[in-house]
């Protein structure tokens, strides 16, 4: 997939400044999938044990899913509504969120490459790669990819005014019609 790129210098730690440090964040979520539209609220919370919980519910409170992401690729489904309780659906959501949380796993197998546009931080996984594209000086995160061995499967963009606190996140799939858009909202305390 990235064979034609030149090898470059880089470390996993270079991505630390982009990694979302959620603590607690609430997003308005909009999902278009195969002609269907779903909206709701996504609560993201870092728990005391450093696991991250993602809870997606409708605006009226109906829960769609509650996922837990731990270190070293640990993943747990606390709840998923019957209509979404399908392995391909859960797997897609899991991988999409692992991508944007910048928890790619296999950090010891990182390869860094470059082209004229910037740097590619490439983490292999069982069926492809999680790749993070930065500017040449490493100061900005251009985009994030989930890729198979041959092509990009999903592309994610993240906008953060304050590093580590994403204001908006978008994920667009290329092999089927699905896109997810998250916009941060202020949760009244």
């Amino acid at each position, binding site marked *: 997939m990235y064979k034609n790129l030149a090898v470059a210098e880089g470390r996993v730690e270079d991505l630390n400044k982009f990694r979302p440090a959620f603590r*607690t964040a*609430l997003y*308005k979520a*909009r999902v278009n999938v195969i002609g269907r*539209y779903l*909206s709701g*609220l996504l*609560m993201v*919370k870092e*728990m005391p044990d450093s696991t991250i*919980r993602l*809870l997606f*519910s409708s*605006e*009226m*409170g*109906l*829960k769609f899913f*509650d996922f837990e992401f731990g270190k070293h690729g640990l993943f747990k489904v*606390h*709840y998923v*509504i*019957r209509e979404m309780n399908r392995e391909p659906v859960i797997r897609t959501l899991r991988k999409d969120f692992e991508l944007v949380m910048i928890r790619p796993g296999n950090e010891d197998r990182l390869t860094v490459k470059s082209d004229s546009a910037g740097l590619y931080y490439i983490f292999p996984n069982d069926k492809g790669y999680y790749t993070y594209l930065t500017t040449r000086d490493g100061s900005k995160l251009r985009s994030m990819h989930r890729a198979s061995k041959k092509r990009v499967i999903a592309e994610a963009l993240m906008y953060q005014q304050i590093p580590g606190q994403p204001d908006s996140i978008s994920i667009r799939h290329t092999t089927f019609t699905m896109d997810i858009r998250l916009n941060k*909202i*202020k*949760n*009244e*305390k």
Partner: protein
Amino acid sequence: MRKLFILLPSLALYLLSSAQHPGFTLVNDHTEFQKAISETAAKTNTITSDFAQEKNLSMLSEKIKSKGKFWFKKENRIRMEYLSPFQYIMVINKDRVTIRDGQKTNSMSVSSNRLFQQVNKIIIDCVQGSALNNTDFKTRVFGNSNNYLIEMKPISKSLKNLFESIVITLDKKDNSVSSINMIEKSGDNTFIRFTGKQMNTNIADEVFIIH
């Protein structure tokens, strides 16, 4: 001694009921309650109110708070408009549900989906006070000096997957709905409180149409 054995189960049931809804006692005879609700429903043509919603995520120790406005008009027309911290509108107009989220509007027939029908009926029953007649639930009524409390426990598997129970409180002053609490098995719940209620004001039909 025999009297004690007869009394004990009743006492246990009374204590259990009270424990589930502190400050309320079980109403065994629904006649007076049903009469009050029916009379109110007959003379209530419209309701407008503000609402405040709180979704409690017990495991995360977090609450998601939102606010909006609510309209009801006979028969079976409801508009729930969320104003903060996001904009979202849900309109039930007889047998159609229309949702506007930002720029996007989706409309569907209530009858297109059995679960959707059931949830729609719950909303209408909650507002119209006809919850006792909903055969998808096992219902109990509790009361105190100021309020009625209707506890609805789902019977069907599909609804059981969504709710452990739904608890509606009615203000005895006018038998209007004060709050709805949708409780999930996980311990999470969604609590909606209605305030500033106005009955039988004029509401244009256009309020229940999203173009």
